[in-house]
Every structure is written in C-alpha cells, then in structure tokens.
C-alpha cells in the first residue's frame, strides 16, 4: 500500500457512512524494527499544518475560540480503519471523534436542537521525539554521500492492519511535486519512474535522509 496514492487526501467515513473529512497527514513512529504507521490525521488543524505552520496556529486558535474542538488534529489509529477502498471507512461512529462537531452544531442550529456531545478520545497527542509526520517525510532530500539523488516521493507500507511497517521509499526528482510532474508527463503519455529504496537503506538525520550503499543498486518503479 502506498501512502500518497492510497491514503493521503482520501475521503474518510464513519461506520455509518457519514463523511468525516479527508486524510490530511499520517504519523510514523520510528522503532527498532523500522518506521511504523501509527495513525492517520484529519481535521482543520492537520490540514492547515500541512499547508503552513502559521495556518495551523490560526486554525488551532479558531477551534479553541469557537469551542469547536480541542485545537489538535484528530488522529485515527490503524485499528480504527475497517476498510480502505474508494473511501476509508472506520469502525467508529463519528460521535467518538470531534470530526463532525462543526457540522452537527450547524445542523442542531438549523433544527433548533441541542447539539450532541462528541468524544475527545481521538485528539492527537503532541508528537514524540521518535515520531514524524508523513508531510515532513515526503519531500525530504535523499543523499548518497554528499550527492543529492532526489526527494522522497512515496512511502510504501506492507499492510495497514496486519503489519503497518514501512517497507520502501520511492525517491524521485521532484518530491512533493511528484504528483504534478507525473501529471504533466502523463499528459503526453510518459511517466516519471522514481527509484525504490528499501527502508533499511534510508536513515533520517535532521531534515535530510541518507542512503546507505549506492544509488546504482536501486531499481526503478515499474
């Protein structure tokens, strides 16, 4: 399963089919066995943070002022996910998250009702030192020695339920612009094919990633 292709920006629904939003980010925990996907984040703060930290600050302040949520992203655990298809369906009803607080309040206002109470259980806790956001990993420059060979364009996960460990990174020339680059080339029938690096060959240090061994050993995406 590929993070950007199969999960990021995909619509999420609760167990009853109510739309909760879209996957705005993901959280990886770096363990001894390698990085593992621990949660997917949705909500205005997660979205704003992905666009710009200043926007996240404003989104947080607005949520707290409106008493609309916790001012933190909503983190869905991998165990919460029932099915990944055209949309991502959860095991939970929306009332267990704050994802539809604004919607239900607006509905209650229109119906002249008391708005329901929502659970805070899925409010994301602050990132730990061994955790990274997908939005921070994607686009990271990858070096072979001192030579930059590209940027991380995609993150591959073995299985979101059974084993959500990262297996490979796809390294390409344009990083987050991968989608646009592929798009532009796809218009004329070509496709950019990045290099596939096994997870144990990539080490993250600060804002860059180091490839162990030679880039010549890496295979291109089919």
């Amino acid at each position: 399963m590929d993070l950007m292709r199969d999960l990021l920006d995909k619509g999420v629904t609760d167990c009853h089919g109510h739309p909760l939003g879209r996957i705005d980010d993901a959280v990886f925990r770096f363990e001894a066995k390698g990085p593992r996907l621990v949660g997917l984040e949705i909500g205005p703060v997660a979205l704003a943070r992905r666009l710009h930290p200043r926007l996240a600050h404003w989104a947080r302040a607005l949520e707290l002022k409106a008493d609309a949520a916790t001012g933190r992203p909503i983190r869905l655990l991998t165990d919460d996910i029932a099915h990944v298809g055209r949309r991502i369906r959860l095991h939970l009803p929306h009332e267990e998250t704050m994802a539809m607080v604004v919607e239900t309040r607006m509905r209650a206002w229109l119906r002249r009702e008391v708005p329901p109470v929502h659970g805070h259980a899925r409010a994301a806790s602050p990132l730990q030192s061994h955790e990274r956001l997908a939005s921070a990993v994607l686009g990271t420059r990858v070096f072979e020695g001192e030579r930059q060979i590209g940027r991380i364009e995609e993150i591959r996960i073995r299985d979101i339920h059974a084993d959500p460990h990262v297996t490979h990174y796809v390294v390409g020339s344009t990083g987050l612009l991968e989608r646009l680059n592929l798009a532009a080339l796809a218009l004329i029938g070509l496709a950019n094919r990045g290099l596939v690096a096994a997870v144990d060959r990539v080490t993250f240090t600060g804002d860059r990633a180091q490839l162990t061994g030679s880039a010549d050993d890496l295979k291109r995406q089919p």
Partner: protein
Amino acid sequence: MSVIVDLLLGIVTSIGGFVEAGSIATAAQGGARFRFELLWAIALAGGMIAVLIEMSGRLAAVSGHTVADAIRERFGIHFQIVPLCAELVLDTLLLAAELGGVATAIKLLIGGPFVAWIVPVALIVGLVFWSCGFAVIEDGVGVLGLVTLSFVVAAWKLQPAPHDLAKALIPSLPHRDLSDYSLIAISIVGATVSPYLLNFYSSGSVEEELEEKHLWVNRTTSFAGMGFGSVVSMTVLVTAAMTLAPAGIRAESYEEMAKMFPPVFGGWGVTLFALSLGVGCFGAAVEITLNAGYLFAQVFGWQWGANERRRDAARFAFIASALLIAGTLVALTGIDPLKLTTISMALTVLVMPLVILPFLVLMNDRRYVGDHTSGMAGNVFLAVLTIGGAVLALVVVPLQIFGG
C-alpha cells in the same frame, strides 16, 4: 423508456440552460462589432465544452468521483488549494454578474435602478437553493431557459445568408480592432467553458447516480445539448450582427443589446429580451451557488448534495449561502453588470488551465476511469487550446485595460 426520457430531458435542459449573462453579452458584442466574424469562436468554445462535459460525466459514472473530489485525491491539497482559491474569486464575480443580469432584466421590464433588484433576486436564488433538489433546479432552469430560443426565432426571421455564416465558421483575423476582437474571442470562450460547469455536471451525475452502462446517455446529452446550446449562442451573435451592427450600436450595455429584438418582434421585443436575459442569468446564479457548496464540501470531505436536506449537509449549505452573500455584496457595489461579466469571462480563461489540465490527467488515469480513458490527441488538442487561450488572455487583457 425512462432512459430515453432522461436523455431527452438532459438535452432540453442543456439547451435551455446554456445561455446566460456571459454568452449573451459576449455574443451580442461580437455580433454588434464584428458581424459574423466571431462565429468560429462560439463553435470552437461549444466543441470544447461538449468534450469537457462528456469527460466530467464519464469520470463521475466510472469512478463515482466528482472533478473536485478526484483532483484533491489525485493531486493533494497543496495543488488543489490554488484552483480552489481562484475558483472562489471567479465564482463570486460570476455570481455577481449573473445577479446583475437578472436585476437588469427586471429593470428592463419594470424600471428602477438595477441595484434595487439585486437583494430580492439574491433572496429568491437563496430560496431556490435551500428548498429544491437537484432535478428541480436542473430541469426547472433548463425548461424555463427555453425562452432563450427566441434568439433562434429572431435569427431565423432575419434570414442571414447561409454562405456568410458558413464562411464565418472558419477562424480568421479581423480587418480592424485586433485587440478588441481578441478580447471578445477570449471572452466568448470564457463564457462557454466556465470551470464551474465541469464540477457542477460531475456532481449532478453523481447525485443522479449515472452508471457506467449509461455512458452513451452522457455522451449524447453532452454533445447534443452543448451542440444545440452553442447554436442558440450563435443566434445571439447573428441577431446582433443583423440588427445592432447596421445601426452602429456597439452593445456596450444590456439596454443597448435589448434593441436587437424590436426590429424582429416589434413591441414584444424588449420584453422577450429581458425574459431571456433574466431567466438565463437566474439559472446560472442558482447553479454557481450550488456549485460553491459542492466544491468546498468535496475538497474538504464534508457531506454534500442538492438532494440532501440542507439541515443534513449544513456546512455545504452554509458555504453556498456565504458565496451567495459575497456575490450579492459585489453586485451591490453598483459596478456595471456588463463590465463585471466581461472581466469575469476574461478571468475565466486565465483560470481555465488550473482546472482543465489536471482534469485531463485524471481522464487518462485508469484508477479513475478504467478502460474509458481519453485519447492523447484529444488531450493535446484541449491542452493546447486551454494554454493558448490563457497566454492570449495574459496579453490581451492588460492591453484592453491600459489601452482604455
């Protein structure tokens, strides 16, 4: 049988809903200033929108995604935020232009300053949005819009020479006023190929649960509906060419454009023009309002749907209402509706590449359209026209502004 009825209704509503402030204004100005010379621009724009509308219906039928939904998923929020903001600004201006068009139509019928009619019109648009489902909005707008067939009747009665019309379908350069000609040509394309139409049509297809097995209905509706709709637009140009141009009227206001009907319909002329303008603009105003809700709800993953009760899709309803209020406020500034229309049409052409180019990529992605991909020739054709139009707009619009 019901499929055939849906097909015929789809074609009828496409024809009736085709003509609005932008197409009337640009075609009338084109005819008044350059006679038949810009007929090719309407034909070209009609061809483009027919292809694009068919593609958006195909995307919806095969993937279950609307255009905005698919662009967010395929390209991510970093890309989507740019066309989203551009469409927000553009749709606000377009909505203001359409509200101004309806208000001007009422002014032609009843009198009074057009600004006085803006708020009542906006309230009725809001009422229709809040109380009607998709079919009522789409079909109602389309059927009422058949009053615009009065342009077809007018053009037929004026008996233009078929040879002159046929010659004008071939692109040509004018003998004078190149920048004015270019701006009107660009505006004709902008009036017809409005980005909001792509998402509106795909959203409607999802709402009406268009299936893959009915792609032939989508194809027929798109080409027949947009084709006949373009013909109506052409008859606006022809009528203006044969009534306004000989009188030296340059169609610099809707009041001047209304003079194209009395030579054909006598005392009923202005009334008929006002009804055509008013109904066409009203329908477009409702669609733009509805599409604002669609756009935001689909990009951010909220509940949406004209067939949902508004209290069950509250954010969708409130965002659409917010755009309606914004458009009303712009219209209330008193800016001439025709000027606003012309500016909006030119801006549309500038924004088009941001929506159409990613859309073309989607139409070649098998994850979305399966085996129903578009061919490379069609992609390149549309991409060249879209980019070419935007480049031309970048040159011509400043020329017009600074050249007065």
